């Protein structure tokens, strides 16, 4: 299953609902293009909902890091929401769990943006 992305606005925050696999190739490109497009439209408060992402590889992890730093470098914020156990475990062993701002409640996550 390839990756699918849809976006919605909640109180000034762009929630990006992701599902499927974020892996080398199509999944990573989809993620990259989505973040670039949001930034080009000035949408710099981004909440990546990964609740339906069932698989991510090292390229996908790299894409999350790239999205995080790209948004931050443009003065925005990118946070992660609803990690599955697999994604959570991968971020733990790669020590990225503390780098990202990870949330498990959408309403609270939206409010946490400055």
């Amino acid at each position: 299953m390839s990756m699918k992305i849809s976006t919605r606005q909640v109180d000034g925050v762009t929630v990006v609902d992701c599902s499927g696999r974020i892996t080398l190739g199509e999944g990573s490109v989809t993620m990259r293009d989505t973040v670039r497009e949001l930034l080009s439209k000035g949408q710099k408060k981004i909440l990546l909902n990964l609740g339906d992402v069932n698989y991510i590889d090292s390229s996908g992890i790299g894409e999350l890091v790239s999205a995080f730093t790209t948004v931050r470098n443009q003065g925005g914020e990118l946070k992660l929401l609803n990690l599955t156990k697999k994604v959570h475990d991968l971020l733990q062993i790669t020590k990225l769990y503390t780098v990202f701002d990870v949330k498990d409640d959408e309403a609270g996550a939206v409010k946490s943006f400055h």
Partner: protein
Amino acid sequence: MTNHRVSYTLDSTLETVDSAEQAATRIASEAGFDDDEVMRIAMAVREAAVNAVLHGNAYDPGKKVNLAFERIGHDLVITIRDQGKGLDLSKIPDPLAAENLLKTSGRGIFLIRSFMDEVHINPSQTGTEIKLVKHVHGPAVGGKEASQ
């Protein structure tokens, strides 16, 4: 568990990465590993295949990736070999180092080592061979033979 070997010769394409992962998932399942271990083995194989296709063979259509699964005693042994210039082990960064945490690549070998019991990397001028070993635990193992 009886000894059994299955091998594949694959093109240097992204499809090979997916095929390698799928083969690993099937063979590890047949070997009796639980779902979490199957996922770890399949991800290790996927990452090794990515290295072989991208960094080893550099998508060269004239170069192949060899992938073999063997059950040796109580081990599942997986070998991935490319035909590249040979991986320079001294240039593999530590992805957990503070200065590397926000790098967008360089985690593949680390994940492979995290998920497998043994990892042996043998670079040469004719390519890199990486051997992944997973020890089988418990009496439930020893199901169907892997088939191609």
